[in-house]
């Protein structure tokens, strides 16, 4: 059920490959992924990979894409149940108001998958100000599905196959959900270095919050609500691999020193009970001051101590 080490890779990370500069899809040798999981003692992951269709020893990219679209659809259920759109809106509307540019602001969701957060924000229409909502992801199939879904509901948002830091028109606010734990060690600091080098005025990254009960809670949730074995496996592993608040804060500060960064809402109502998700939020200089003022009472939920303890 649980995993021996936090450093186990997730299956969804290993069954796709992209050239980081061109984003061209690479071929993935099925046997190598199987061997990787076998060598880590994760037989369940190896079995799941073994069950995936192949073409000439390489994973069939179309089958992998179909699977990932299904998995993202199932994972959206978690965001819906845990009211994730509203949680993002609470911080994003304050951040957008704090940035307060006269031109249209660009909010970019990095690693957007099928674009749930961006589509939810577009559907609710309460972000405030003049905001352009964009989702960016490396996977063309997920982006295609996000576009299809947004088109079906006539939502005012767009999706691009791109590196969120290399858009022709850069982002003013960067956000993500469940992405940070995919970056391990120095890669996490490097992610924040890209924030520093970008034109963004603020960022807002949500991820699972690690706690002693998180893996069990995640296992229970995924066991009863997810149908795809890959979703069940990666969902639980995500909770195990999630970065604690001090790791996120120190990476944000090391990588993006011109931002003020803080954790938000790690604890429930001031009790020691951890929330399932926490967020690392940051903004540059004067934007931060306006953001904190804009939060009002909710500013008490911010905690910029690397030791944690926010409400």
């Amino acid at each position, binding site marked *: 059920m649980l995993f021996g080490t936090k450093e186990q890779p997730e299956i969804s990370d290993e069954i796709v490959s992209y050239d980081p500069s061109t984003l061209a899809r690479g071929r993935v040798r099925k046997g190598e992924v199987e061997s990787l999981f076998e060598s880590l003692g994760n037989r369940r992951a190896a079995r799941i990979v073994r069950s995936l269709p192949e073409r000439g020893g390489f994973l069939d990219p179309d089958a992998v894409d179909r699977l990932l679209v299904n998995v*993202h*659809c*199932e994972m*959206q*259920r978690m965001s819906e*149940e*845990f*009211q994730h759109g*509203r*949680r993002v809106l*609470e911080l994003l509307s304050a951040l957008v108001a704090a940035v307060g540019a006269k031109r249209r602001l660009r909010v970019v969701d990095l690693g957007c998958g*099928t674009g*749930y957060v961006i*589509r*939810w924000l577009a*559907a609710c229409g309460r972000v405030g100000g003049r905001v352009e909502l964009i989702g960016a992801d490396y996977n063309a199939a997920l982006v295609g*599905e996000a576009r299809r*879904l947004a088109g*079906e*509901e006539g*939502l005012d948002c767009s999706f691009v196959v791109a590196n969120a830091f290399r858009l022709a028109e850069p982002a003013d606010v960067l956000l993500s959900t469940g992405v940070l734990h995919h970056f391990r060690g120095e890669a996490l600091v490097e992610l924040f270095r890209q924030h520093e080098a970008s034109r963004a005025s603020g960022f807002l990254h949500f991820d699972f919050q690690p706690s002693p009960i998180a893996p069990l*809670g995640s296992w*229970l*949730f995924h*066991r*009863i*609500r*997810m*149908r795809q074995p890959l979703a069940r496996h990666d969902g639980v592993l995500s909770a195990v691999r999630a970065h604690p608040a001090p790791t996120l804060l120190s990476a944000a500060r090391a990588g993006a020193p011109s931002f003020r960064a803080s954790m938000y809402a790690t604890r*429930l*109502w001031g009790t020691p009970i951890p*929330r*399932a998700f926490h967020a690392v939020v940051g903004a540059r200089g004067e934007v931060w001051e306006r953001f904190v003022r804009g939060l009002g009472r909710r500013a008490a939920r911010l905690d910029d101590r690397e030791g944690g303890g926010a409400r």
Partner: protein
Amino acid sequence: MSVWEELAAGFDTRDLRDLFVPAALYVLATLDSAFVGYREAAGRSALIRKGAYYRRALLRGALWGQAAVGLALLVFAALYVLTGERAAFVGALLEAGRRMLTVYVPYALVVLAAFAVRAAPSVDVRSLTSTLVFGPFLFARPALVAAGVVWGFCAARRWDAAALLLFVLAEMLLLERLLGRLRARRALNRAGEV
């Protein structure tokens, strides 16, 4: 005495509890099957606005629940005709039903109360209903469904009653899988048409 007269004699209609037991079980079965329809549909549509989609899913589940109740009634009728002690059979089922209600009614009340709490305008309160009630209770549902049947059987202790209880148990546990298969078949048919 005809079969119908015997059946009527088995139920003491002057005792409202005898009518209450099958009526309450029917209401619970309809509620449960509606939620089965919801669960089967959940996680299959990634649209944002899907209130109508879930309403259809609830209705589909409830309608399949009626079919399940109908099948259970057919099995009951067959067993009733076959059994030699019809009044005892009906009496045993009523006692089993009473016991099943002691398991299922509290479960249903907690779940319905959680829905009421979920109406609160707080994301944390709503999330807690998922974490503390819907998740664990859904996880426990198969065991609880079985526990109700076993507890009921302990009162009935008849092969004919046991057969009907087992049939109902199988229906409760397999309905979601059946709905999933029907959906997969519809998807295949649509793909074939394309």
